[in-house]
C-alpha cells in the first residue's frame, strides 16, 4: 500500500472539520433569523421557537437509535437466503 490512503483519510478529516464548521455557521444564522422572522407552520406547535430544528435533530437521533435495535431483529448474515436455497 502507498501512503495515499493515509493522506486521503487526513484530507477527509480536514474536510469533515470544515463541513462541521459550515453546518454550525448555517445553524447559527438560522437561529438568529428565527429571532427576527415570524415563521408560521401548519400546526400551532410548529410556530414555537426552532421547532423544525428540534424536530429534525430528534427525528434523526430516533431513526439511528431504532436502526440499532432493528439490527438485532431483522439483520441477518449475507448468505441468509442463499444458505438454505429456500427461495428457489
Amino acid at each position, binding site marked *: 500500500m502507498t501512503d495515499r490512503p493515509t493522506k486521503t483519510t487526513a484530507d477527509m478529516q480536514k474536510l469533515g472539520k470544515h463541513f462541521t464548521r459550515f*453546518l454550525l455557521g448555517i445553524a447559527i444564522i438560522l437561529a438568529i433569523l428565527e429571532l427576527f422572522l415570524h415563521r408560521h407552520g401548519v400546526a400551532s406547535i410548529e410556530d414555537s421557537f426552532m421547532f423544525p430544528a428540534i424536530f429534525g435533530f430528534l*427525528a434523526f437521533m430516533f431513526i439511528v437509535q431504532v436502526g440499532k435495535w432493528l439490527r438485532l431483529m431483522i439483520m441477518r448474515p449475507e448468505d441468509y437466503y442463499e444458505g438454505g436455497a429456500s427461495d428457489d
Partner: protein
Amino acid sequence: MTSLPPGLLMIIAAALLPFVPHVARQIVMLGAIALSAYGLVLGAGTHLVWDVLGFELVLYRADSLSFPFAVIFHIAAALNVIYSWHDKHWSQHCAALSYAGAAIAALHAGDLITLFIWWEATAVTSVFLILAAGTSTARRAAMRYLIFQVLSGVLLLAGAAIYAAKTGSVAFTSMTLGDTASWLIFIAFGIKAAFPLLNGWLQDAYPEATVTGTVALSAFTTKLAIYALARGFAGTEYLIWIGAAMTALPVFFAVIENDLRRVLAFSLNNQLGFMVVAVGIGSELALNGAVAHAFVHIIYKALLFMSMGAVLHQVGTIKASELGGLYKNMPFTMICCVIGAMSISAFPLFSGFVAKSLTMTALGDTGIMWAYFVLLFASAGVLEHSGIKIPYFAFFAHDRGFKTTEAPLNMRVAMGIAAFLCVAIGVFPAPLYNILPYAVDYHPYDASHVTGQMQLLIFAMLAFVVLIRMRLYPPEIPSVVLNSDWFYRRLAPQIGRPLLRAVMMVWGSFLCQMRGFVEAFWFVIDKLVRSPAAGPTIPGPAALVQLILLLAVLSIGYVAAIG
C-alpha cells in the same frame, strides 16, 4: 403517425435494435424517443379508438394528467440511452427501450383492457434488465419480480372483467373503492406502487439488476402505478394511511441496509409514500403535488441510481461496508450524487423542495395532522438514508484505497444532465408547475417555508455529525435486511414444505389404501367371472364389459320406452 399511441414507436424501434450496429443503435433509440415525444403534440383528447367485441378500446387518450408523466417518461428514457451508451450489446437496450415504450403507452390507455396489456408488457420487458445481470441471485430475484408483476396484471384483468360485466364498459376513469372489481384493481395498482407488505419485489429485484438496468427500472413501473392511482382512486382516504406507512417504514430499513442500491430502493418506496398520500388527499393542490413529486423524483432518483451505478461500474462493489474515500477518484460523480441527495432531501433551490412543498401544504390544508407529522418525520428519514448515507459511505467515510478513475464519459453526461435538471427545476419551478394537471398559484419560496425546511435539514445533519464524532453512528456491516419478501422467501417454504410433506404423506397412504380396494374389487370380479357359468374361453374382464354394456342398452331401452 402522430395518432399512434406514444411509446408504440419505441417498442417498434426496440424490435429493430438487434439489427442495428452499436452507436447507430443509440441514435436510433434517441430518434425513436424523440418521434414518440413528438406524438404528444396532438394534445388532450381521444385520438385512437378500436371497437372489439362490443367494447371500445381507447388506445390513445391524452389529458392533463397523462401529459406530465409522458414528458418525464420520455426524458427518463433518453437519459437512460445516454447512460448506457457504452454498452455494445443490444439485449439490454432492447429491453429498456421497449419497457419505457410500454410504460408510456400505458399512460395513454383510456380503458382497462388496453391498460392491462401495457401493464403486463412493462413486466415482461423489464424483467430482462434484471436477468441481464447474469448471476443466479439475479435470476431468482427476476423470477420473484415477474411473479409479482404478472400477479398485479392478473388482478387488474380480473377486476376489469368484473367491472365490464357489471357496467358494460371498460373505460378507465375514476372509481370508488367498494365492490370486488374496484378492490381487485386497487390491489393490482398497489402491488406496482409497492404498498406495505406488497413491496418486497422492489427492494428484492431492483438492486440485483445491471448497472444501467436499475436506472431504467427506477423510473417507470412504480410511477405508472402512481399515475394509475391518481386516475382511478384520487381522494381515497385509505391511501393516506397506506402512503404515510410507506413514507415512514422504509426509513428504518434503509438506515441499516448495507447495499447502497438497496438503500435507494427503500428510499424509492419512501418517496412513493409521499405521492400516495397526495393521491389519497385528492384535492387539486395535492394531485399537483403527486404529479410534481413523481416528475422530479424520476430525475433525482435516476441520478442517485446512476451515481451508485457509476461507483459499481468502476469499483465492482456497492456495499457500504466495502466502499469509501472515492471523492478524489470520482469527483464529478460525487458532485452529481450530492446534487441528487440534496434534491431528494428537499433542500431549497433543489427540485424536491418545490414538489414536496405542494404535498405538505395540501396535507396541512386537510387538517390530518398525524399524517402531516409522519411525513415531516419521513423527511428527516430521507435526509438520513439518501441525503447523507449514500454520498457519505460511497465517497467519504473510510478510505479503502481504491485506484479507480471517473465513470465513462456517457455516464457523466447523463448524470450531468440529470443534475442540471434537479437544480434548474428547483430554481425555476414555473415550467414544471405549468404542465401540472391543475392551474397552480403556489409559491414555495416564502421565508417561513424556506427557513423551516432549512432548520429541519441542517439540524438533522448536525445530529449526524454529533453521532459520527461521538462514534455513536453504527458501522455498516455485511448483511441482509429482512423485508416483506421474507414471508415468501423464508417463512412460506419453512411452513409450506413440512405441510406439503404431510399432505403428500396422507395422499400417498390414501392412494395405497385405494390400490388395495381396487385390487380386492378386481379379485372378487375375477373370481366371479371365472366361475363355470362364464365359460372357459371368455376372459373375465371382457365378460364384465359385455355385462355392463348390456345393462346400459337395456336401461336406455326402458327409459326410451317409458318416455
